[in-house]
């Protein structure tokens, strides 16, 4: 029982990363119709940003958590203005290919600078663990889970309870109608992209103290996250987050009972979902 709960907790923690990345992908896709392949690379850049800040300026985790997402969000807005915007009038596949190219370039640039070895990051806060009766929770992991849940909730509230959210949702679901009401949807595109990128970078900084920081960390993760958003329904914020946590749990528990299937379980689940609901669990049927 204890090992079950322990694994479930670990699953929720890795689900936090899936959820944060899937959330950013969903928000970006909803507004721009861009499936950002570079999302994994941006997560990796976030983790390396934390390492670089510690190495060069001696700045600790909290500074990294503040500065790195901001800096990458700015870089993301530049990316959207300079490159992605040029392709939005064409088939969405072109932007998928563009961001794939960007991901490859980022990954190899980092490998050139740091090599293939993992970089140590020992400035994470909350060392040790806490005893909550069931088993020992590593305190940092509890923190990651809390941040992730809080952020997902905040974004959800932002989208459902505020005027900005209403505009973004309207622009996502009925772009023509929204424009007909005199709302300049184009104005929101760049900030939304920057916001999504910032989320990926933040996930990267959170990952730095507990994961191996290396140039391959984003590439493998992004493909799992793609499967997550296919399951949840691409463009559905709620579906993406829920699927993110579920897949994290599924992999961790799979690790406990059927280790062979642990890595592939997410793709098996994706196959089942495609069979039953091709648009994803919470997605709307559309053709993009």
């Amino acid at each position: 029982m204890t090992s079950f709960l322990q694994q479930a907790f670990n699953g929720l923690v890795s689900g936090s990363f899936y959820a944060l990345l899937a959330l950013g992908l969903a928000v970006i896709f909803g507004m721009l119709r861009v499936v950002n392949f570079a999302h994994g690379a941006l997560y990796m850049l976030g983790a390396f940003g934390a390492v670089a800040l510690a190495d060069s300026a001696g700045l600790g985790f909290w500074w990294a958590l503040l500065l790195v997402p901001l800096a990458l969000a700015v870089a993301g807005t530049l990316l959207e203005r300079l490159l992605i915007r040029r392709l939005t009038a064409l088939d969405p596949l072109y932007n998928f290919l563009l961001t794939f190219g960007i991901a490859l370039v980022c990954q190899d640039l980092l490998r050139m600078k740091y090599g293939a070895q993992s970089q140590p990051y020992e400035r994470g806060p909350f060392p040790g663990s806490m005893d909550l009766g069931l088993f020992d929770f590593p305190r940092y992991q509890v923190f990651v889970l809390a941040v992730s849940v809080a952020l997902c909730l905040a974004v959800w509230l932002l989208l459902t309870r505020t005027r900005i959210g209403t505009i973004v949702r309207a622009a996502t679901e009925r772009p023509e109608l929204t424009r007909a009401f005199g709302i300049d949807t184009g104005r929101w595109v760049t900030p939304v992209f920057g916001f999504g990128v910032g989320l990926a970078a933040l996930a990267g900084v959170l990952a730095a103290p507990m994961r191996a920081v290396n140039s391959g960390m984003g590439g493998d993760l992004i493909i799992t996250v793609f499967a997550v958003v296919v399951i949840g329904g691409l463009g559905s914020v709620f579906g993406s987050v829920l699927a993110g946590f579920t897949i994290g749990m599924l992999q961790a528990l799979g690790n406990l009972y059927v280790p062979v299937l642990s890595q592939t379980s997410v793709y098996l689940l994706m196959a089942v979902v495609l069979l039953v609901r091709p648009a994803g669990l919470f997605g709307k049927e559309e053709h993009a």
Partner: protein
Amino acid sequence: MILGLLEKLHGRPALIRWGLLTAGLLVAIGLPWGLYPPVATDILCWGLFAVAFDLLLGHAGLLSFGHAAFWGSSAYVSGLIAIHSGLPFYVAVLGGAAAAALLALPIGFFAVRRSGIYFAMVTLAFAQMVYFIANQWGDVTGGENGLQGIPRDLPGVDLSDSFVFYYAALPVVLLGLAAAWRIVHSPFGRVIAAVRDNSARARALGYAADRYKLVVFTVSAFLSGLAGGLYAVNHGFASLQEVYWTTSGKVVVMTVLGGIGTLWGSLLGAGAIVRLEDWLSTSGFEETGLVTGGVFIVVVLLFRRGVWGTLAHTLRSRRQSPALDREPHLEHDHDDSSQPVSS
């Protein structure tokens, strides 16, 4: 100069076609004289892979981002057959291709339920599943070490010389290319183009669109498997790299660089990328993704027609027949929901 020559010939498309075919064959036969033979064989393999991929992307409008699954699974299966059976390598490669086609049936069955960007993501995810299986099934695939010591068996011929092996591999590739050409120019090819351009209308005409997509997906996987099997026999090993997602990306780069939907352009794209990577690795530069990625960004932003597409476009605009002048299909083939939100 070449353009001028082609222009003079433009009234005779058949002449151009035969001329190009002869030139292509001459290049194919002469390749290992001008290039290090193993690299020449690599160009053959990647060229066939890229043509097989363009059959799917350019002619059926389906961007698979998981074609490494077929190239790679065939590399492993061909290798296993060659190691354990001692049969001629042709049999091994054919067996590998058949395995790739078998694998494509379930993957394609799920993938064709979605189109466009979703199709890309679903194929990518399933390919990654194949990667994990290859990684974990170490007893068979060698796991991290890969499958080593794949022989090049052919009774009566000593294939240890790479120069000789090139000519043993060439017929397989030419047959594969001929098959791709035949399919595109067959009634079946017309139907898949119709499904690509307007699947609703094709369905209304009574064609089972998803079934056609699945068939072309499987055929493309089979041809990719032929290429992947040859590649493994050429190198004497199959590694996890063959099933990794960067391999899927590489074949997309080759096709886009050559020109989507041009079929033969893919050969040029493959040749260019293989040469470039070979040149870089011999000069000690290992971050080939930097170059492939860079090529990707430039081509997608500035050069979407690709090499062959640009050439054909230039010729056609000189011939002032605007009806024939069309952009790669990707820029046409979108419905209302894929319209950009920003303006």
